[in-house]
């Protein structure tokens, strides 16, 4: 039963005792609960980073206490190698159960990363992490961030990107055992990473890309008309941003809603914009975060890394990094978007 009345609520995910949190992800459980995961620690790529998870009880609307579901030591044991830190998690529930794809930094920065995979029947017990073989060159430089989706044959479309050497974005097709059975790049000469793909119908998909350059740019996108097997040339939207992640969800009326940092310089503004023509034109952005406070060298005033998921009840859950110290959770519905983002 979908809400007919506009709905918009905001809260925070329960806090953990870390000075830093980032990159939240969501998956819906079979009973309608929502599982959220994010990574936290002292800072990015610090050795104490762990991936935490909390579960939203759909009946009570309350989050469970966060608990770590992956850490450096366990990942090192699972992979049989030294791990420096952990990064972006991506939760996904496919026909085989719950999966957690996440980034493990082997050496250096994000360029020295590899993709790991754990699975769970219930979101509580997780298998030891294992490699996802995604690159022939030491299987390094590969990361995940965007939401996966499932093909008709049950395999998973996993957005991936590469940060070792040159940066590029792509989509891997992963089988039930977590093995990559195909991989395609979204070719472009520009630095475009963190693809967020949306399957608009069984044959067509769009991939929205983060402008990965330190100079101001735009959200870009590419289209596929063969179930993601090949991607067309990358086009530029009117959505201005700079080196920040973007998330997109399809609404009931077929339009697409993008959540992105609407600023050519910072991540202080988080906005929604909507397209009714598959990315060609966009509505005026509607701001949901706009922080104009002066810099104080204490608070990292950014509202970033949106991750969006539609529940089976039709409600749209949005999570994003809030000042790098909390994860904001917003719930809204199509009726609210129809009124707010015209």
């Amino acid at each position: 039963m979908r809400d007919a009345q506009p709905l918009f609520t905001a809260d925070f995910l329960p806090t953990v005792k870390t000075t830093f949190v980032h990159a939240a992800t969501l998956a819906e459980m079979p009973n309608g609960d929502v599982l959220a995961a994010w990574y936290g620690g002292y800072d990015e790529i610090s050795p104490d980073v762990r991936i935490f998870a909390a579960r939203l009880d759909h009946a009570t609307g309350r989050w469970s206490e966060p608990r770590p579901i992956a850490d450096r030591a366990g990942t090192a044991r699972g992979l049989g190698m030294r791990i420096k830190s952990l990064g972006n998690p991506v939760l996904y529930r496919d026909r085989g159960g719950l999966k957690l794809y996440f980034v493990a930094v082997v050496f250096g920065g994000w360029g020295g990363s590899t993709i790991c995979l754990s699975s769970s029947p219930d979101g509580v017990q997780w298998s030891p992490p294992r490699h996802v073989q995604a690159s022939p060159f030491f299987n390094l430089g590969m990361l995940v961030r965007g939401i996966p989706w499932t093909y008709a044959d049950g395999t998973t479309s996993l957005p991936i990107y590469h940060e070792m050497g040159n940066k590029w974005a792509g989509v891997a097709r992963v089988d039930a055992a977590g093995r990559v059975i195909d991989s395609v790049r979204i070719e472009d000469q520009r630095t475009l990473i963190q693809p967020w793909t949306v399957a608009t119908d069984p044959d067509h998909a769009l991939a929205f890309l983060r402008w990965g350059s330190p100079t101001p740019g735009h959200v870009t996108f590419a289209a596929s008309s063969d179930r993601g097997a090949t991607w067309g040339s990358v086009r530029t939207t009117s959505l201005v941003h700079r080196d920040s992640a973007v998330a997109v969800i399809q609404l009931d009326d077929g339009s697409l809603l993008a959540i992105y940092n609407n600023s050519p310089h910072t991540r202080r503004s988080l906005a929604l914009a909507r397209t009714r023509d598959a990315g060609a034109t966009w509505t005026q952005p509607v701001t949901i975060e706009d922080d104009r406070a002066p810099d104080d060298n204490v608070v990292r005033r950014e509202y970033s890394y949106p991750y969006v998921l539609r529940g089976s009840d039709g409600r749209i859950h949005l999570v994003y990094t809030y000042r790098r110290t909390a994860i904001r959770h917003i719930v809204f519905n199509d009726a609210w978007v129809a009124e707010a983002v015209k």
Partner: protein
Amino acid sequence: MSAVWGAFALPSLTTIALLIDLVARHRLLPAADRRLLLYGMAVMSLIFYPMAIGLVHVDAYRFGYTPWAPFALAAIGCAIPPWRFRAAIVVLLTLVAFDVHLLPSMNLFDYVVDPFGGLFAIGWCIARGLRRAFARVT
């Protein structure tokens, strides 16, 4: 298998064959067959790894996922002269290993070449080239 190799990369069948030959004190592969495999790995490494890290905007690695890749490798195996049949056997074993999914990868190229073996093969080719050039000079 990955733990044995060091987790960074899977050993390709070519590298495994060369290592077994090394352990057997080169009684399995004649020197010319060995050279053929090392040249092949060096060439493939020079083609694929720059593509893998995005230095070249072509993704030949993807071909290794296609059903055509084993046919292409079989054609290469058939092109090996009969007197280098042991190198051809290594190619055949590579195809068999791929067919039974001996390694976690589903990409044929990971069975043919790996970064450690490829970098060694490139180094070996350079060293051999320098040795021959030096021998000509002197």
